[in-house]
């Protein structure tokens, strides 16, 4: 099949919350914009079926951007760039007002916002909630329409599979990308003066306990189409990837690994089956105790519940908070949660809800492509935003809006003052061949994407974070290398759909390796709020030596690892 060639000023890969904002802002500056969306832009990504709240800084809460940034750094256990947190705080309210101007209802009838603490996001965080008994189910359709009206050309069912660089060189300026039509099998080669990566995190990293049980294979905390493709593409182009040792962990509904948006973390306190609280206070819970105690107890020796009858830190909020949460959960962003709740008769307004830890994934904005305050990566012509980024901290949807907008602006400004660079056809062919070799393998000779994905995720869960040791990590790397060498080359794809999954499995293997290597590299335990790394036998938070980003770089196609200083405000 012949390839389609297109060109544009700005190519946005991933049409989720961040990608839509990037496209809108770039188009408003007069840039031509193309969006690749692996799914369909109306309902793609983590915001696909709605949002229940957006983290922001609000004047009513008397928290300055500087104070917010300091809290953010604390939540991240020091491993984030304070300037990014500061800039996030500066812009959040403006982006919420943008959303309002696009048609997303934001206020109560009296014109006020509903702003409440959202401590599950990070200590000190506050968030704006939907103005009524519903969550914002239609944020994505509204943003998608706005992007289209702004002039962006949307290519649905088109997955980005590889970035193109000047001269095809590693570390060169990014000048476009190759996409795969996920229903057509056609390759789309897009030459672009600047590229924005907004492909999200990855929820296919750790292995869920139900993973061998077919119908639950894709029931992940976040959208399973997000498989770390952006991080892997950026790595292959030569960008800096930071902090992959810190995967995010989610305490969520027992047996249903959908995000526990709602009572858990926001208002609840973890208690054991005996009724004994895990931690004395939310403040204490934000550290080591919460994870070590609940993680091991949850797995091994005790049932875990979340008790929402305590509202640590803000008892005066309890009434309205519970009302809001209850409304939210009745109209959850996760449809499955409603069925779960009905089946089990769980009701957090009446008693503790049973929960458990679900497997680690990539979502915390700490681990990912190293992003600066202008949403730039370490490569010329490459911008990023949303869950694909690293070096920041827990920005959630607010970060997707703030840095999505900045990525679009920065990319457009860059694109409008530079000339296009001819693409390197060898690089295009190499990207295609990397996938197409799976079409030459027959099922009797090879392995399905399902088997290989399951194996990579098994290795991460058995040997990687959050609870691990140097010996365990070395062993995990040995197994991963064995599987990668002996079996990964024999992935087969019988059709276009399987070709997409093969591409995703490549990303999963890369994340597995990057995670194990980064975790082995860091010779300490460290406990960010939602993404601890506990290494048996290593010192705890050795700031003198390890208050740094770990950084993974592709140097001559070898995965090399080093450190980068964390940025602090003056």
């Amino acid at each position: 099949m012949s390839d389609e060639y297109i060109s544009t000023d700005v190519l946005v890969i991933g049409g989720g919350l961040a990608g839509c904002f990037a496209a809108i802002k770039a188009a408003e500056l007069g840039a031509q914009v193309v969006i690749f969306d692996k799914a369909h832009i109306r309902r793609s990504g983590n915001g696909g079926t709605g949002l229940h709240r957006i983290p922001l800084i609000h004047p009513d809460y008397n928290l300055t951007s500087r104070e917010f940034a300091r809290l953010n750094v604390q939540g991240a256990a020091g491993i984030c760039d304070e300037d990014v947190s500061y800039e996030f705080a500066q812009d959040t309210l403006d982006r919420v007002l943008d959303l309002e101007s696009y048609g997303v209802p934001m206020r109560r009838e009296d014109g006020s916002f509903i702003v409440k603490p959202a401590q599950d996001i990070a200590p000190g965080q506050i968030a704006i909630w939907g103005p009524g008994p519903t969550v914002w189910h239609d944020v994505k359709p509204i943003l998608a329409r706005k992007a289209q009206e702004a002039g962006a050309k949307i290519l649905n069912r088109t997955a980005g599979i590889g970035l193109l660089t000047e001269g095809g060189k590693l570390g060169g300026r990014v000048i476009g990308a190759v996409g795969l039509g996920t229903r057509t099998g056609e390759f789309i080669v897009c030459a672009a003066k600047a590229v924005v990566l907004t492909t999200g995190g990855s929820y296919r990293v750790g292995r869920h306990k139900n993973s061998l049980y077919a119908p639950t294979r894709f029931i992940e905390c976040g959208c399973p189409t997000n498989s770390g493709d952006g991080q892997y593409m950026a790595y292959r182009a030569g960008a800096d990837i930071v902090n992959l040792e810190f995967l995010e962990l989610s305490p969520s509904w027992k047996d249903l690994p959908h995000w526990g948006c709602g009572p858990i973390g926001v208002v609840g306190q973890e208690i054991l089956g005996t009724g004994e609280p895990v931690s004395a206070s939310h403040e204490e819970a934000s550290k080591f105790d919460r994870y070590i105690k609940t993680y091991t107890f949850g797995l091994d020796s005790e049932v875990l519940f979340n008790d929402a009858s305590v509202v640590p830190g803000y008892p005066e909020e309890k009434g309205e908070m519970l009302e809001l949460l209850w409304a939210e959960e009745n109209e959850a962003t996760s449809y499955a949660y409603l069925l779960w709740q009905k089946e089990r008769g769980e009701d957090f307004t009446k008693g503790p809800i049973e929960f458990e830890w679900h497997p680690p994934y990539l979502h915390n904005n700490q681990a990912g492509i190293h992003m600066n305050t202008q949403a730039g990566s370490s490569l010329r012509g490459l911008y990023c935003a949303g869950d694909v980024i690293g070096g920041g901290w827990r920005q959630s949807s607010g970060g997707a809006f703030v840095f999505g907008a900045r990525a679009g602006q920065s990319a457009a400004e860059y694109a409008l003052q530079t000339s296009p660079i001819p693409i390197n056809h060898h690089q295009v062919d190499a990207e295609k061949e990397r996938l197409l070799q799976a079409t030459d393998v027959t099922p009797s000779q090879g392995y399905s994407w399902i088997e290989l994905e399951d194996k990579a995720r098994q290795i991460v869960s058995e040997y990687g974070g959050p609870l691990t040791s140097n010996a365990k990590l070395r062993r995990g790397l040995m197994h991963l290398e064995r599987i990668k060498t002996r079996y990964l080359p024999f992935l087969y794809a019988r059709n276009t759909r399987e070709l997409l999954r093969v591409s995703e499995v490549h990303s999963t293997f890369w994340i597995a390796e990057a995670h194990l290597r980064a975790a082995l590299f860091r010779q300490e335990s460290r406990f960010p709020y939602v993404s601890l790394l506990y290494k048996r036998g290593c010192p705890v938070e050795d700031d003198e030596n390890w208050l740094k980003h770990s950084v993974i770089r592709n140097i001559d196609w070898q995965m090399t690892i080093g450190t980068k200083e964390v940025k602090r405000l003056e």
Partner: protein
Amino acid sequence: MLRELASTDLEIRYRGGIIIDDELCIGCKKCYEVCPPDVFEFDEETKCPILAFPDECWYCGACIFECPVEGALRMELPLACL
């Protein structure tokens, strides 16, 4: 009796996924268009979607939000999650 049992379809069917009511479905294709993990196929003859890849359903409900006919699509959680 045993012989009779042995002759029936031996494929194990897991419960769970999106249940499509062909009687109510108007064939608008919206579920097929938007599904993030792309689990539907569309049967042009019957003008109804088919849940072709139930194992890859995220259970997000995007199809149900988009469906213009109340009750044409219904979600059933796998037993492992219930």
